[in-house]
Structures are given as structure tokens and as C-alpha cells.
């Protein structure tokens, strides 16, 4: 039997890349940057993912979704590995993912902070140059650095008065 090894790799990667995040279903795992690697070793597909936050409760669902989708596509032997290093950064959200966030009324993260040396204490509210994903106004205010999921902050647009969620820089 002649089987090219390249085609199945692409297919497995393509399938894994199209699985969506359970908490932000407008993003694929690839666009969110949590899909780190897809390898086929003999008949086995090994997918590596990384958590966004240590307590991310969606990891088990991501794992199950990846396994189910790959099984459905005919890959019988699927293993999902978790990689803790390097730690996920919001910088890994792709341009397409950022656009998807905005299209769905969320604000995309700016550049993640870089720490060379001790992390500085900041006693004043974080200043971010954001615009409201609904009306585009830059007159927005932070209501909380913590939101409905671990990765989001809460904002309110002063112009249109709508609240919105901002994916935090980390």
C-alpha cells in the first residue's frame, strides 16, 4: 500500500487547527495560540496544547474535542499532550484571531508586558489605548481587570455606554 505521509499530517493538522475554543468559540485553538504542535508518528497523531492560564477549566474539553474530531476524521490513535513551557502569551493570538474577537464584540489584547528583571508594582489602573468594539469610540473605561473568563478584563464604553470584554495582555 502506498500512502504518502505528508497528506495525513496536513489533514491531522488541519483538523486540529479547526477545533474551536470552548469559551471563545469564535476562535480556533490555532488562532488562540494554544495549539503548539501536531505530529503523526506511524499511525498515531500526537497533538500538543498549552493552557492559557494555570487554572483554565477548558483544558479537558479542548482535549476531548481534539480527540473526537480526529477520531471522526479516521485517526484512530490520538494522543493529546500538554506542554507547560513556553508559557502561553496573548501575543500568540493570530491576526485572524484578533479580527475574529473584534468581529464578535470583544477587544483584542495589545502587546504582552516584557519582564526583564523584577516585575514592577503598578498601583494605578492599567492604561490601555482601546476602542469600543461596537461604536469605535476610544472613550472607554476599565471596570475590572477580571472578567467572566480568566483571560478577560471588563470595560465600558463611555460614548455608547455598552460594556465589553477585553482579552488581557499576559
Amino acid at each position, binding site marked *: 500500500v502506498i500512502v504518502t505521509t505528508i497528506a495525513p499530517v496536513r489533514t491531522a493538522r488541519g483538523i486540529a487547527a479547526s477545533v474551536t475554543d470552548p469559551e471563545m*468559540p469564535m476562535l480556533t485553538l490555532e488562532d488562540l495560540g494554544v495549539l503548539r504542535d501536531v505530529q503523526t508518528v506511524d499511525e498515531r497523531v500526537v497533538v500538543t496544547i498549552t493552557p492559557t*492560564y*494555570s487554572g483554565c477549566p477548558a483544558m*479537558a*474539553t479542548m482535549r476531548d474535542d481534539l480527540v*473526537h474530531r480526529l477520531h471522526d476524521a479516521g485517526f484512530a490513535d490520538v494522543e493529546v499532550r500538554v506542554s507547560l*513551557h513556553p508559557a502561553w502569551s496573548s501575543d500568540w493570538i493570530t491576526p485572524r484571531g484578533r479580527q475574529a474577537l473584534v468581529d464578535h464584540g470583544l477587544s483584542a489584547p495589545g502587546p504582552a508586558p516584557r519582564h526583564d528583571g523584577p516585575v514592577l508594582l503598578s*498601583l494605578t489602573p492599567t492604561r490601555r489605548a482601546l476602542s469600543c468594539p461596537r461604536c469605535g469610540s476610544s472613550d472607554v473605561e476599565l471596570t*475590572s*481587570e477580571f472578567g467572566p473568563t480568566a483571560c478577560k478584563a471588563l470595560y465600558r464604553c463611555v460614548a455608547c455606554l455598552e460594556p465589553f470584554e477585553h482579552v488581557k495582555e499576559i
Partner: protein
Amino acid sequence: MAQHTPDPSHLPDHDSVYDGLLGGDDSQWAFGTDFEDPLAGVDTTVPEGVDRHDLAVYCLMLGDDALVMSHRLSQWCSNAPDLEEDIALANIALDLLGQARLLLARAAAADPSVVPVLPDGSPVPPEDALAYFRNDREFRNVRLVETENGDFAMTMVRLLLFSTWRLALFQRLASSRDHVLSAVAVKGVKEMTYHRDYAGRWFLTLARGTEESRRRLVVGLLATWPLQAELFTPHEAERAVADAGVGMDPSTVSDEVDVLLEQVFSMSGVDRPEASPLAGVRGETGRDGLHTEAFSRLLAEMQVVARAHPMGSW
């Protein structure tokens, strides 16, 4: 198309009346239905020259700190001053619970002998056995995290002291020779930067707020301060892992933490307390498994359901 309406005659088709809500697609639910090993697929080889038991005990110390602090913070759920703070405290509790899971699982992988023995065939994973089936004397957390929450001001004081210390520690642990500890630390630094800023801002806000908010803050600070010294007192196990290049002697972060806290105190116009440290019993404190009375009540509540069902699958 006809709207689906609940009809008792259809119930036998489902295991639960709620199954219909899923629409056949359970991927929309964010939470997995079962616990997964948080270290599945992670290389847990113990670095050469490191004593497995010392590493496990050290991971229990850092894991128990996070677990107990997380539990205390989660007691604020539905009780915080407003919805935003409720969500903030729950988020911080969730981050710490994630750190606790990784660290307890790491302890169990390094030295399985630290995990309580459960009846044959029990499906309880090692991280849960450690969280729910150890007695108070087997917990290695500092006493700072276990005392009652008090009011919101006291909770902010504790969170500031805890996250300032732990963030300083984790920045150094990032270079641990143990790959799991190093990865947990790097991730934890990112998360705890938000926790420390949150607590610091509230400290400042309460100090500069009303007479009453400032009074409560100072009362909280004076009550919490005696538990602070314990954070920097190295235990034998911490010294051992520090010597082996996998852990940190906590006394090495005391200067940095002092400077940071001084920054908050001076901006807030609050004097640094001078209260002496809470004594241990015959020199033993939280790291030795010697805890306060409040901790026994906390454990009783946290563990009661799991202990009633050692064969339970969750």
C-alpha cells in the same frame, strides 16, 4: 419547525431532563465532565542529584499555600462588596487552584509515597487524594493563608502580603532545575502580577477612602502582620531544595518584598506594623504541619464530601 417542548413521555429517552438542553453537542460547555491529570503528557523526570522526597515536600508546601488561599478567596463568592470584586476574587482563586493542581500533581509524581492510600479501586486521582484525604498535620501551607477572611479590607491585606511574597519567589523559581516547577513558576508570575496589582490598588484605595475604610484596613493589617514573618523563615526542606538548585530559600526574597510593601505603605500613608511574629508550638509552624484552629474548620468543610465518598467519581 415545531418548538421542542418538555414532554414527560420523552423522559426515558434521556438520562437526565437536562440532556435536551445540550442539543447533542456538549462541546459548548466549558467545563470537562471529569478530572484530568493536569500533568498528563508533561515530562516529570526528577533532575539528577535531587532527593525525590524533598522535591515532593517542597511542591506540597507551594501547592498547599495556593490551595488553601484559593479556598479562602472562593468563600467570597456571592459575598463580595460588588459583582466586579466577586468575579475578581473568584478569578484569582481559580488561578491559584490551577497552580495548586499542578504542584500537588508534581508532588505525587516526584514521590508517590506522599499520597494518602485510598481503598483498592478508588478512582480518586493523586492530586485529589492529597487535597481531600490528608489531615491538618500533613498540610505544609504557611498559616497566613488559613486564617479567617475577616472583612474585605483584611482579605486585601492578606492578598497583598501573599502575592507580593509569592511573586518574588516565583520569579526566582523560574530558573529551577526542575522543568515542571520552572514552567509553573513562569506561568504563575504572569498571573500573580495581576493579583498583586489588584490587592495593592485596593490597599491604596481603602487607605485613602473614608475614615471607616482606612480604619478597617489598619485593623486588618495589624491582625495579619504577625503571620508575615513565617513566609520568610526557611524550613529544612526548603533549604535542601535550594541547595539542590530546584527550590528557593524564602529568606532570600525578604528584602525585595520589604521594598515593595514599603512602596504601598508610604503611598497609602500607613505605618509599617511592628507586631512580633505569631509564635509556633515548640518552634513548629505551618511548614511543619502545625496549624491554627481555623484551619481544621476549613479542612472539615473542604473535605467532607470527598471523604464521604472515597470511591466516588466526579
